[in-house]
């Protein structure tokens, strides 16, 4: 009896409404992309949670490493002028 094979791991991203952002919801195992798409529909949109589905093979995802976190992300924390809350608006100025 050979080794068992449960298929390839796919990561699933769902777009809840047209125009919305694709959000990672979890993963699944499937043997080919048609099966993966059907499984994603059956698994992650049973309660009509989706308008669009993206699938990426787990092995194709490039992820940042924790040890780089400081160098990769921290410098941006100094640049607080990028955030709208940094600026004080004159009284009376609305919706800006």
């Amino acid at each position: 009896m050979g080794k068992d094979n449960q298929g390839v791991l796919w990561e699933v991203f769902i777009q809840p409404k047209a125009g919305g952002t694709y959000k990672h919801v979890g993963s699944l195992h499937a043997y080919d992309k048609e099966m993966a798409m059907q499984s994603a529909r059956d698994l992650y949109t049973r309660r009509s949670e989706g308008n669009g589905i993206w699938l990426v093979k787990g092995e194709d995802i490039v992820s940042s490493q924790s040890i780089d976190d400081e160098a990769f992300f921290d410098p941006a924390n100094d640049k607080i002028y990028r955030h709208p809350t940094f600026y004080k608006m004159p009284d009376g100025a609305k919706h800006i």
Partner: protein
Amino acid sequence: MEDADKLEAFQAKIDDDIKIEPKDWMPEKYRQNLVRQISQHAHSEVIGMQPEGNWLTRAPSLRSKKILMAKIQDEGGHGLYLYCAAETLGVKREQFLQWLHEGKAKYSSVFNYPTLTWADIGAIGWLVDGAAIVNQVSLQGTSYGPYSRAMIKICMEESFHQRQGYEIMATLAKGTVEQKEMAQDALNRWWWPSLMMFGPHDSESAHSSQSLKWRIKRESNDELRQKFIDKTIGQGEIIGLTFPDPLLKWNEKIQHYDYSPINWDEFWNVVKGFGAGNKKRLQHHRKAHEDGRWVREAAKAYADKKSFKQKSA
């Protein structure tokens, strides 16, 4: 960074309620604890499909059949979310299944009890799922990111399960004399196993204190068990059912129910494999796995052929 420093930084994250993600450094024991807990949680969901699946073909109304089918499907889905969360820790699904089949992995022993009547389906939904909900709501705050997210998703889907079970019990309790007896009998048989789902008393649990320190668990076994009892007794009383515990009594001073000591001998026997359904559950799972081997092999072979064709095109 030295391991001691890493450990300190790790604990600081935990204490600050910052989630640990797959890419983060973690103590080996933390990783092992989670590999065990998450995969066993997954196995429980999948094995749990069996006792309910037993009555799917005998569901006595179209509505209850539809709802039960959807519930069982949900359970399978929960197992899936959990296997995927467990895989982020570097162990493949094939390995989890192998450990299960070799008897090296456990699953919640409550699913080894047999479902003998339609009322058992009601009792499982109301009590077993009810207990699971108390546990899972607490686990939403678990420190490991993927596990926490899986729990949040599961909790959103779980409340319909408990309502389904309770509705069955309520219908039976106000039905014919035989139906009411059926409901009471099921409650009598499933009450203690549901309480035992929360695990041993904290004083006797091997993994408890480290799990709490690392916030894998957020509340103790006894705290969760008490929560479940306190909210369930009233539900039973409303539909006219009694609980199989002569010492069950509301304690005004501590604002909790007092209850009889649990028979842990039965619990450990079932965990060790002597329950009525133990062998049966695992055999069923192994058989489905073996019967389906040729299908998985075919799916893989076809995918390989297709991808080879595409590469040569």
